[in-house]
């Protein structure tokens, strides 16, 4: 929608004052309109979460519910156990992000700064498998996890989510560590600092921007992850994450749409709040992926 309209209003550093103003205002109005379209679905979710079953279908464009049905939230939070799903999601996301940052930073560091036997082979394998999307290989993943006794546990989910892919994170760290001047490390060596100390005290703190990027990208991917958590929780619905938990509202003969909308709103709130608070880090993090 914006695609068609936007190029017609390039930001011009203008020669005269009034057309410049005008254009700026035009751009603002245009952006406001597009942004309104952009967030409309969210308004719809919030509105539907306060309607009753029939009203969801009959009210049409009307976003204001006749009488707010707060019971939908109680149903989603308590009956459908979204409190539990929320906790699961947070634990899985935090665990996955932590594992990914640690393992990718370590791998990226040695790949960037040391020449060792098998280095080229490792790199080749990483690059070749860069585009193996998770999901196609779900069956062996499940079998393996089951043999490790980790199927149907949050730990298993974290292990699988942090083990699959994340090549880009390794490569990001590698690229960054490679750009750090050798002298920094030499100085640390003279201070008799060991391999590990150099990594944790010198290198990792320097790589803060990359870590931010990896954290944000991993966070987004894990929070949104659907297929793997779906399959991993088939046997234990109480371990579902938020994205999978939506299924709980789909019954054999009916779907609880308002409950689903309420659950959707509940699962949106923390992430939107988090996003508003940490907005700058989010943007810097994502931007880092391009800049480096």
């Amino acid at each position, binding site marked *: 929608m914006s695609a068609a309209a936007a190029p017609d209003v390039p930001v011009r550093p203008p020669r005269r004052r009034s057309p410049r103003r005008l254009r700026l205002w035009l751009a603002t109005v245009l952006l406001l309109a597009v942004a309104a379209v952009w967030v409309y679905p969210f308004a719809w979710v919030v509105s539907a979460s306060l309607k009753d079953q029939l009203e969801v279908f009959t009210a049409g464009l009307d976003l204001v519910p006749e009488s707010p049905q707060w019971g939908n939230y109680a149903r989603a939070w308590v009956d459908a156990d979204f409190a539990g799903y929320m906790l699961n999601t947070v*634990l899985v996301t935090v665990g996955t992000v932590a594992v990914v940052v640690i393992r990718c930073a370590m791998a990226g560091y040695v790949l960037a700064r040391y020449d060792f036997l098998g280095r080229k082979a490792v790199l080749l394998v990483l690059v070749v498998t860069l585009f193996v999307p998770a999901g196609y290989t779900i069956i062996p993943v499940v079998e393996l996890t*089951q043999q490790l006794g980790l199927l149907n546990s949050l730990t298993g989910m974290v*292990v699988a989510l942090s083990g699959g892919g994340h090549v880009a994170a390794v490569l990001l760290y590698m690229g960054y560590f490679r750009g750090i001047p050798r002298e920094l490390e030499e100085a640390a060596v003279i201070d008799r600092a060991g391999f590990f100390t150099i990594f944790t*005290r010198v290198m990792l703190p320097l790589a803060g921007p990359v870590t931010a990027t990896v954290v944000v990208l991993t966070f987004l991917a894990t929070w949104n992850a659907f297929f793997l958590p779906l399959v991993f929780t*088939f*046997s234990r619905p109480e371990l579902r994450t938020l994205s999978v938990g939506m299924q709980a509202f789909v*019954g054999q003969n*009916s779907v609880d749409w308002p409950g689903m909308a309420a659950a959707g709103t509940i699962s949106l709130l923390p992430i939107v709040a988090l996003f508003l608070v940490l907005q700058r880090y989010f943007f810097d993090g994502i931007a880092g992926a391009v800049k480096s």
Partner: protein
Amino acid sequence: MTDNRFPARAAAVLPTRRQLLAGAGGVAAGAVLAACSTAPSGGGGGPSGGQPGTGATGGGTTGGTGPLTWWDQFAPLQDLQKATFQRFAGQGGPQVEYTVYNPNEQGQALQLAFSSQQLPDVFSLAGVGVPPSVLMNQGWFSPLANGEELRSAVPEGTLIEGLHSFDDQLYSFPIFSTRQYDGLLWYSRSAVEAAGLDPDTPPASWDDLRAAARAVQDSGTSGLLLPLQFGERMATFVLELAQAAGFPGATQGGSNGVDLSTGEYAYHHDSVVSAIEFLLSFQTDGLLFPASSSLDARAGRARWAAGGAAFFLDGPYCPGVVVRDFAAFADQLAVGALPTPDGSAPVLNRTPVGGTFWVSGQSDQVDQAAELLALLVGEEYQAGLAEAMDQPPFDLAAVAGSGAHPTYKRAVEMFGEQVFVAPAPQARPGVTDVEAAMGTVEPGLGAIVQGAFSGQVSDVRGALRELSDKLTAAREKAVAEVGGDVSVESWAFPEWQPGTDFDVSGYAR
């Protein structure tokens, strides 16, 4: 990460994470995560549970302790199940851990649970397309020790060797009646009245329904709503309508699309084509609810109940959903029989309904599970089924005296008059093995119906003929693979007259 002792931990980064999570879980998550740490012992992880693939059909073991696990997809029966489980515990049985699934998910859950030795003690086979006899050979089930008690409790002729019992051992039984169908004509009294029609005489013929839908459409509401996105349900409607138009076969249980007089696939039969054309005519005439193409049965039912359309084809479970979810609509609800080409009462044939619940071959408490299942054939449970208004109980008489919605009672009454028990080819040796070996043929009837509505299938008869041909070829190939007694004749019951109940003794050839 600035911890100096990190090297020691780095070497064991996995256990560290694991402990960290387990620790966090114990502190923060309480019950939720506590459950996860006991994961493997809960369900069917019984130590000596039947190893799959060993060919052992003996199934699970006894002597296990702890709660029984139970999975099914019958959301409308939730309260009844919970009450029954409580009753069971009250009689000294173990507690039951009960999970209601979305039917699609359950098949996938079972698939994974079986291979990871975590089958629940008791489960239904929702979403599983592989015939029970094949699963049984893989070690999925345990026989029911109280088979004799159960046999005497269900109506005569319900249990069939090859469907419910194998080698004379009972493995499962239906809790629902064979006498039911999915294509009842439900409608909204107010919408019909507003169109100037009599809400007490539902349209009986195909032309009546078209005319009624036209009248409703002219009064400003859509005529008919079809859950087109639900291909399987659409296929069922078509097969039932086709039977009403003279298709010489039955629905359900591997007999779909088979001409039971010859055993041949006959999807291209005139009656199937005219059934599809009948449904299509609502679209061509502009009498179809516009969103039909993107609605499944659940969403369709909701849209219909919200006043989207006057008529809706649906099974007997419709009033249950309306009463629970759309109470405001309940007194508008009315029902008629499946419409037939000439308006006479439909005559429908259904193969015997399969077993509802099965005890896992990986269970370590097969005896307790069997005792629990015995409660389901009792009067109390059957009456509960009637009240729950899902599929009708095998004890159809339990419905009349229940507190069920009048339309539910009417539907069951019609089932008693209009539905007959057809022979099940699956009861004959080798048939299920052939079915399992045939795999899936796409596009199936459901997809063809969808394609006809979306315009992607212009030659319906040709597509149906292709389906019959592909199935015939697949069956021939599978018959050759399986070998033994089985042949196309196994699907043929020339002596059976549609519109009569098939006698169990006729399975022997």
